[in-house]
């Protein structure tokens, strides 16, 4: 039927797969989650984006009834995660950061046991296990002990285990961390297909590209708080404009060129340290013509000119004020640059 349409309508009418309000969780003195609000529309892929230790996993664990929030409340399809936990568990599938399958058993045994726990009879459980293994390309490895599984195979088995009951909401905690690009793409395909089949997916990721690629909406989370929320395009727009990159042929002219850029475009500029390019926000494309004329008038020769749309990386940097990469030097260098460039 018009399943998809119905879902979209409901979402507009306020039918939320996830509604979290002011979630707080402290571990000792550390407020891992510090007042998180989330609203995930039914039938969408929702990305929770943040660096390590931002509180993504803790948030997911609270939503998935694995952890009780200190403060705040959350509802899954309208059911309270604390008071109606057992109902919530019937509506969700959880794939954690670390594969939650039984190491000492085979893939088939794992899936059969989970299926039986979910109420399938013995033969039905076996059928279901075979079906899922086939679907996730694990049939050949079905009887092997999990110890010999690669990281990718383990993840796939883990996801398969989450899908036994065909839950309408699936939590994926960093589903592609540690996977090679090919396996990662397979995982993305699977996630897209799940949503096509009517599921809602809430995934966490450290990778901006992943959020960009998959998510309909994104919440950026940092130090246990949601610092930005919206569609990918909204977030990009919130950072503002595209950037103009100017490469100067003769580096002696760099300062003069910068002055011209700042005067004509009437903005602050910065110089990238790696390749000595001038970077300036480009609010009005028309002015670039004036700029180029002025530069030629000053006798400065350009080596290169390019315009770049803001990337999610920049969005993240702008919002959180620090880099996503753990590589601190690179991150601080970049944020410095962005800081000047965007005023």
């Amino acid at each position: 039927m018009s399943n998809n349409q119905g879902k979209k309508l409901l979402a507009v009418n306020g039918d939320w797969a996830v509604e979290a309000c002011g979630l707080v969780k402290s571990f000792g003195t550390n407020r891992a989650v510090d007042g998180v609000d989330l609203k995930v529309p039914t039938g969408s892929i929702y990305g929770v984006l943040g660096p390590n230790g931002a509180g993504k996993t803790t948030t997911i664990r609270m939503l998935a009834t694995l952890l009780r929030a200190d403060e705040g409340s959350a509802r899954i399809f309208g059911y309270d995660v604390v008071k109606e936990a057992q109902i919530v568990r019937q509506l969700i599938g959880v794939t954690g950061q670390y594969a939650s399958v039984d190491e000492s058993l085979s893939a088939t045994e794992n899936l059969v046991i989970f299926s039986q726990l979910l109420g399938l009879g013995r033969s039905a459980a076996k059928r279901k296990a075979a079906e899922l293994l086939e679907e996730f390309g694990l049939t050949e490895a079905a009887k092997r002990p999990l110890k010999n599984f690669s990281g990718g195979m383990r993840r796939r088995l883990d996801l398969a285990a989450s899908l036994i009951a065909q839950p309408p909401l699936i939590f994926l905690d960093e589903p592609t961390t540690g996977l090679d690009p090919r396996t990662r793409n397979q995982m993305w395909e699977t996630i897209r297909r799940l949503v096509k089949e009517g599921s809602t997916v809430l995934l966490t990721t450290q990778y901006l590209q992943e959020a960009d690629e998959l998510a309909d909406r994104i919440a950026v989370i940092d130090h246990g708080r949601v610092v930005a929320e919206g569609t990918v395009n909204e977030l990009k727009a919130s950072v503002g404009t595209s950037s103009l990159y100017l490469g100067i042929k003769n580096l002696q002219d760099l300062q003069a060129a910068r002055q011209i850029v700042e005067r004509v475009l009437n903005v602050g500029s910065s110089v990238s340290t790696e390749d000595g390019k001038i970077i300036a926000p480009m609010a009005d494309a028309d002015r670039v013509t004036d700029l180029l004329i002025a530069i030629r008038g000053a006798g400065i020769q350009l080596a290169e000119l390019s315009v770049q749309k803001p990337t999610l990386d920049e969005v993240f940097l702008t919002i959180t004020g620090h880099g996503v990469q753990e590589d601190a030097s690179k991150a601080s260098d970049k944020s410095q640059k962005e800081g000047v460039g965007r005023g």
Partner: protein
Amino acid sequence: MKSTSNTPATDRRLRNKMSFSQTVSNSLTMAYRGLLKIRRTPEQLFDVTLQPIIFTLMFTYIFGGAISGNVQSYLPVIIPGILVQTVITTSIVTGVQLREDMDKGVFDRFKSLPIARIAPLSGALLADTIRYTIATVLTFTMGYIMGYRPDGGLGHVAIAALLVIVCAWSISWIFAFFGVIARTASSVQGISMIVLFPLTFLSNAFVPAETLPKLLQWFVKINPISHLVTAVRDLSNSGTIGWDLTISLIGAAVIVAIFAPLTVRAYMRRT
């Protein structure tokens, strides 16, 4: 998954309470998981196979002459005693393994599934009755080889075996509780030994209580382990069922009634 679309949340029949039959079926599935694990790692049965053989041989020949005059007349005293001691010591492993198991990611999945909360625990404990059975059968077999001929007959010996297994299962809830609250598997082992060592040795398992100092006698007489040992002796040596059996069963029920809810509560709270 070949079916193209999922049932939306609003069209599902949902219940917030687990029925009793569901709880039983979940527990049985978890027990099946435990059995599969034992089959995959048979080396974890080392203790239940070796301990009965070594302990029975050792204690019988060490104490036999001193306590009962000769080994032959000590056998009816020591076999029930060693049986209870061995099987109950085995139940410590339940707590240790539970701790190790819970540290693995798979318990996260159990928690997120709509299953009875008690099932991962009761299933593990249920699967471990296979260990108690192995230990029981081996102890009686060793006794038989050494010349023990219980007068109670096979039927009463079987009832005695069943009694020991049931009581060990109940006591394993104590160790399961330690397993859930302890931080590491080795600390579970440590705490459990401290509890169990005095309980099994300060009983009538190896020596007649009458030979002990007054204060110890008092403890030995109220020690539930003594009642269990006496019940097993009555059953296998004379085929009689006495007050001690009732006390043992009541004790077992009390332990389960206290520690099963405690363990489940601690398990739920632990994250």
